[in-house]
């Protein structure tokens, strides 16, 4: 085995896989070390990829030629575009994945990378020279050297699994926790915190009475994740829906004291947006019933994932309440639900490349940073892996911004605000939501990917061709003029005596879609529908986008006030001790960055600005 690499990635989960692949694409030699080879592409929880906000992340990963989108497309057994009736900016692609197909596709992708070696084993510690990384040490004391490491150990740091009042150490069901590494990280003076999450019992589909349960099928025209995929590969299936009832709730209420969450066995903070069934019953006691999606875990797998009833009740109670539910009267539980507590590292110790600020060569990605979800993990993995490679190869950092991507929003949120509960992506976190759409992720990011050497030739060619089609269509549409009377006649709300518009401007009118306009501009029929759709969406948001561009400019003005790394906040008289502490921890790069720190006051910003200006004047 080779004993020296540019980059070592620890952990083969979602963050680890995309980190290793990105580092390899960026030109580094990479070792991906994980506890078990089957870890590659393992989904600890829900067998689904994407959703609102998360679907955006997957599209962005794909635009940078990451793995998750392609793998999810190959493993997808049901595709649905969420919010289909709402505007394109808030539509999110989501798929159900066959676990085995997902693992197989991921493993295949990883093994195709020439520069990437997968090593099965446990990393027991990092080898450091002061604050500089030299390599990693395995459980058996063997060492491998490297310039950079990406830690993506997920929930494995001091993981503790709870089923009722029983607890056992573990990173997830059937996985050992990483204790040695956790101890070392703590001894490095990194701030850690404790979070928790939970998962529902897995059911045996052969023991479910499916008759009469409402069916939920996929979309007729499935929206894929990858810009390079043309359609589903695997056979498509439906999910079914059932509901809890008063009897279910009674059983849960009577046994609350035996729940790990309610019995006081767990100290970590759980996600508010992903409550356990115990939480739902207690907090929303007025609701007589909660919806459960019964999602198959695979095409040739009888395991059913009941989405909506994650729990940490003892096994006998889980059995009792599950069997009170319609269709599940005789169900067999294959694996009980459980809650898991784990350590995370305060991400405010990281910079925008996800590198530890006061160390050299250590990058962190995924759940270890306090996030939850595969997509969040993979997106961070991509950025950390890319930057680990660039660091190892002596290149400039590659950073994403709030104004160019959801990934940029997420990373900025993490390193600026830190987390107080597991962090999940939502579209509402993105202030430039109307321009950061899932459909234009490639136009936003693929050029950056090309500049960073991340993107394959095939993707580059496809992307260039798409841009050419869009530009050509835009040019032609810009030259076609349409009268207001004609537009009005086509049912578009516009004053018939108004001015003539070109076809692009006409598209921007409220209620004007490609469909309505095609009647008036027959040339439209000559363009391919994807190109037209894209142009239509840009036009629809144009007036908002103009305003957002102004906001972005204002932001960039504040961004242009750089705060030196050695800025002495203790010299700012009148700054509260709390804010001073936050500022010292986050070390904001710019005035705009400082403004996003939670609890920041206008007065404090003014104070910083005044000092920056004073420095400016002195220099001038």
């Amino acid at each position: 085995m080779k004993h020296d690499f540019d980059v070592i990635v620890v952990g083969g989960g979602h963050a680890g896989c995309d980190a290793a692949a990105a580092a390899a694409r960026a030109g580094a030699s990479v070792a991906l070390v994980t506890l078990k080879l089957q870890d590659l592409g393992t989904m600890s929880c829900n067998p689904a990829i994407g959703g609102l906000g998360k679907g955006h992340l997957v599209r962005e990963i794909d635009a940078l030629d990451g793995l998750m989108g392609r793998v999810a497309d190959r493993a997808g057994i049901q595709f649905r575009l969420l919010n289909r009736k709402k505007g394109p900016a808030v539509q999110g692609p989501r798929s159900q994945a066959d676990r085995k197909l997902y693992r197989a596709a991921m493993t295949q992708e990883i093994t195709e990378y020439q520069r990437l070696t997968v090593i099965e084993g446990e990393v027991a510690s990092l080898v450091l020279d002061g604050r500089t990384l030299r390599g990693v040490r395995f459980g058996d004391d063997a060492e491998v050297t490297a310039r950079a490491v990406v830690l993506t150990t997920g929930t494995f740091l001091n993981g503790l699994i709870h089923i009722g009042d029983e607890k056992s150490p573990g990173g997830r069901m059937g996985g050992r926790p990483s204790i040695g590494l956790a101890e070392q990280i703590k001894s490095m003076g990194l701030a850690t915190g404790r979070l928790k999450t939970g998962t529902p019992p897995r059911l045996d589909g052969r023991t479910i009475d499916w008759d009469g349960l409402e069916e939920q099928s996929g979309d007729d025209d499935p929206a894929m994740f990858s810009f390079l995929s043309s359609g589903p590969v695997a056979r498509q299936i439906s999910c079914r829906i059932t509901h809890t009832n008063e009897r279910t709730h009674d059983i849960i209420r009577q046994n609350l004291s035996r729940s790990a969450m309610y019995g006081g066995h767990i100290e970590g903070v759980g996600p508010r947006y992903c409550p356990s069934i115990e939480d739902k019953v207690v907090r929303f006691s007025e609701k007589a019933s909660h919806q459960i999606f019964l999602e198959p875990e695979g095409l040739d797998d009888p395991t059913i994932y009941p989405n909506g009833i994650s729990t940490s009740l003892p096994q006998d109670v889980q059995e009792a309440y599950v069997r009170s539910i319609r269709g599940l009267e005789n169900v067999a539980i294959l694996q009980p639900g459980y809650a898991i507590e784990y350590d995370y590292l305060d991400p405010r110790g990281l910079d925008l490349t996800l590198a530890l600020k006061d160390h050299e060569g250590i990058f962190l990605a995924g759940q270890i940073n306090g996030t939850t979800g595969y997509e969040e993990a993979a997106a961070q993995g991509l950025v950390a892996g890319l930057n680990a490679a660039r660091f190892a190869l002596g290149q400039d950092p590659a950073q994403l911004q709030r104004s160019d991507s959801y990934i940029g929003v997420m990373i900025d949120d993490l390193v600026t605000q830190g987390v107080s509960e597991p962090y999940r992506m939502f579209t509402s976190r993105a202030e430039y939501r109307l321009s950061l759409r899932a459909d234009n992720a490639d136009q936003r990011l693929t050029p950056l990917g090309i500049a960073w050497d991340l993107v394959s030739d095939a993707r580059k060619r496809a992307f260039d061709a798409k841009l050419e089609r869009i530009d050509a269509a835009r040019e032609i549409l810009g030259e076609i003029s349409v009268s207001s009377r004609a537009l009005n006649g086509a049912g578009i709300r516009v004053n018939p005596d108004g001015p003539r518009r070109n076809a692009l401007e006409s598209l921007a009118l409220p209620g004007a879609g490609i469909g309505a306009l095609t009647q008036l501009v027959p040339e439209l029929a000559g363009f391919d529908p994807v190109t037209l759709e894209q142009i239509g969406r840009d036009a629809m948001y144009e007036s908002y986008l103009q305003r957002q561009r102004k906001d972005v400019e204002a932001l960039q003005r504040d961004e242009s006030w750089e705060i030196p790394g050695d800025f002495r906040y203790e010299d700012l008289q009148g700054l509260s001790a709390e804010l001073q502490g936050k500022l010292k921890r986050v070390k904001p790069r710019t005035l705009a960055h400082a403004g996003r720190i939670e609890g920041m006051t206008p007065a404090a910003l003014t104070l910083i600005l005044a000092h920056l200006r004073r420095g400016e004047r002195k220099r001038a």
Partner: protein
Amino acid sequence: MDTIFALATAPGRAGVAVVRVSGPAAWTACEALAGRLPRPRLASLCRLHEGGELIDEALVLVFESGSSFTGDPVVEFQTHGSVAVVNRLLAALSRIDGLRPAEAGEFTRRALENERLDLARVEGLADLIEAETEAQRRQAMRLFEGDLGKRVEDWRARLLRAAALVEAGIDFADEEIPQDIWPEVAALVQRLIADFSAEIAGIGTAERLRHGFEVAIVGAPNVGKSTLLNRLAGREAAITSEFAGTTRDVIEVRMDLGGLPVTLLDTAGLRETEDVIEAIGVTRARERAEAADLRLFLGGEDLGISLQAGDILVAPKADLQPGGGGLRVSGRTGEGVDALLAEIQRELSDRLGATQTAVRLRHGEALVRAVTALDSATELLYMPEDVAELIAEQIRQAIRAVDSLVGRIGVEDVLGEIFASFCIGK
């Protein structure tokens, strides 16, 4: 950080003058001039010297950083209010190491930077310093006490609620959220529009209160306008004579009318005239009268100036001619003058909202931006298509506008404007 100093009281001859010094070297400066540092917050009589020469005998007040106006260590010298003494003291201060004269508004700026005040309170302070009458003082005090900040918090909370409802419908569409959020969103938005509009409507008056109300006395030549003005003002402000057309310019008299700052305008007699100079006076009078907050029409309204709501009809020269429409007033004898003043005061007071908190044009502009955004949101609410993301965008705009009131965003611009309206030493 520099230590700054300036005369804090009005320049010129007075009983006392206060020179304020703020910053890390303030106390050393005090020791240098007074030979000692008096106990903080205890007025002490000291002899101020420079180079062995006595400058003045002054009352010296020392404040620690925690209890001073600016948040810095502060020293205040209360000297005799002589121009020469003050100049000599300022010169002495400027020769002390680390001290420099304060820029316009710099003391307040430090108070802001040291989080002793927020933006709206700084504006309140500026108004308080400018206040000449009781109503102005009360309005400024409300702002200084942080009323606007409190109201912004309330608006913000309601906007955030509306935003949260819309966002929930977007981000949790695949989960179980309440069925119909739109009626609540619509209700929240409507009430906010109403609240903002009420504040906006009151800003004109609040602005007038800051600068003074204009009350124009209009009427035909020689109807007795100037006599009435003199009577109202209690002194000979306008030249009165028996001849029509004496008052060619618009004459202004500022007065405090039961706490309201009022500027009375005596306009040229309104008549057709051949005299070029008088004609200019007449035009100017018409314009000023139309723009004034209130008009007193002496002897009838048919003067080519339109009667606006609240205007007062006055029957002049009550001592000479019995009868006539309107309030009977005699500028010569003073008959009916008290009643007229009471009527003006009542009319203007009615216009002042007791709860008005937004008082500056800047506040008005921000609220107009918020209303525009919310109006668009309302329009979008009734579109047949689901445009939740656009509604959310408009609500965000409104939040940004409201935030700018207390300086939460756009710190730079807002500050620039605020500090431009300050003058040195405050």
